[in-house]
């Protein structure tokens, strides 16, 4: 919708836009939830970097003081909350992020009708599907500018709800990646300076560069980027994948094992070629 306000100088335009947002749903007991969040963030460092997050408080239903504390606690972990979901929570005050209503679940097939999921932390959902298949589901709310309720004081201007998309960034990891760790980077390339252990996994929408030995699984171009590649200084990988096309250790030619290689798509096939 676009309409001009009746002003003599220049018309101001208001536009509605919808964005897919990542939602976190804290649950009681909160300390346990935070502990599991920390564990999860520890396994996927950089996951929340530059990622705007909506806080769904309909499970926890905290009071204003508790919300302030929670936003603060998440802020210390580098998780920026830019809006909240809370039924009947219009009276939160201007110092807290605004309340959103009318969220719809996002899936790969589009948005579902509004629904409430009970009793599952969103972070589980975020990692639920990150496999070589590469279809990534994240819980999301459908944001509309019109849904942004101005906070209680009536003079508040309806803010433009445009949320800048996170920059395509490179995630650099200086420590070795251990067995069991899952690095998921939805905004571009991943560079690992150390080695990637067997039993760990890196999933990136861009390319993956490993300057040590790659013994785990690496899936590049996870959301349909056919130009992405996997590079490593020593290929002992369990699985290499680009845009869902994969090759297991078993299927790899012995001539590309233990060498510096790159994996890329060529004529719709995954090719693994040593660097001469």
């Amino acid at each position: 919708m676009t309409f001009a306000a009746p002003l003599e100088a220049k018309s101001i335009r208001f536009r509605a836009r919808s964005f897919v947002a990542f939602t976190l749903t804290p649950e009681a007991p909160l300390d346990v939830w935070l502990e599991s969040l920390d564990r999860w963030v520890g396994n996927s460092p950089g996951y929340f970097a530059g990622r705007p997050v909506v806080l769904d408080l309909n499970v926890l239903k905290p009071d204003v003081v508790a919300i302030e504390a929670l936003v603060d606690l998440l802020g210390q972990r580098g998780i920026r909350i830019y809006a909240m979901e809370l039924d009947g929570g219009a009276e939160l005050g201007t110092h807290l992020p605004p309340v959103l209503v009318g969220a719809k679940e996002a899936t790969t097939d589009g948005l579902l009708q509004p629904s409430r999921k009970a009793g599952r932390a969103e972070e589980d959902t975020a990692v639920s599907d990150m496999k070589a298949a590469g279809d990534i589901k994240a819980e999301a709310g459908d944001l509309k500018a019109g849904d942004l309720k101005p906070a209680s004081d009536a003079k508040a201007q309806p803010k433009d709800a445009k949320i800048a998309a996170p920059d395509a960034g490179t995630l650099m990891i200086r420590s070795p990646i251990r067995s069991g760790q899952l690095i998921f980077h939805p905004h571009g390339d991943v560079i690992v300076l150390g080695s990637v252990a067997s039993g760990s996994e890196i999933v990136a929408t861009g390319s993956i560069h490993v300057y040590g030995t790659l013994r785990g699984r690496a899936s590049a171009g996870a959301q349909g980027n056919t130009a992405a590649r996997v590079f490593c200084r020593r290929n002992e990988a369990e699985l290499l994948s680009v845009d869902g096309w994969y090759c297991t250790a078993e299927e790899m030619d012995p001539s590309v094992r233990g060498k510096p290689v790159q994996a890329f798509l060529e004529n719709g096939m995954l090719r693994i070629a040593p660097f001469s």
Partner: protein
Amino acid sequence: MGKVVVVTSGKGGVGKTTSTAALGAAVAKTGKKVALVDFDVGLRNLDLIMGAERRVVFDLVNVIQGSAKLSQALIRDKRVETLFLLPASQTRDKDALTEEGVAEVIGKLRSVFDYVFCDSPAGIERGAQLAMRFADEAVIVTNPEVSSVRDSDRIIGLLDSRTLRAEEGEQIAKHVLVTRYDAGRAARGEMLSIDDVLEILSVPLLGIIPESQDVLRASNLGSPVTLSEPLNAAAKAYIDAAKRLEGEQLPVIVPFERKGFLDRLLGRRAA
């Protein structure tokens, strides 16, 4: 309809995964269709012992969450063609398993395979309880030492209360498999005797696996001992145990210490 057998212990490090692989391979060698399911999400090892770690693409968690079909995740063994493995995920934790999901996977496997062996994680928490939840029979792996026997006793209590069969008022068939049995140490009283173990647990004995370097070597080579070295003592013991599991009545022979003339002369203990 196949049988679902959980291999469990409570205590870690007693040889659950080794026993799952060895028993499963021994049963599959008789022509039965066997699936081995690794429930140890986050610390998977069964694929290593089976030598299939280089072929894992999808795993149990993918199947439960619907991102892969069961047929895509099952890995067929290269040595025995009726033997299949469903690996665990290494980058998740046990919370990724749901009871409904496990029920569905086990149900599908049960309709296709003669035997489904579930390799339980150590402990008595969620992972171990999900592994035993849908079992018809249980193999309780025990070392002849006090802490292992106590933990096995705890697990037997769970088998009789937390499994679906128990909740429906039926019995779950239980067998004790004593592993890492050192005849010499048992003779010197440094280990519990088989009688002590059976007296405490009061569960029928499935077999006694002697402590053996061959088992470790086979594990490190990625081949169950019953496939790679079927003639050594531990492998024979596993093959007999597998026969008993299938209902054969074989007497269990308690291993005793054999001392050859040279060993006595040199004061060495036989392995």
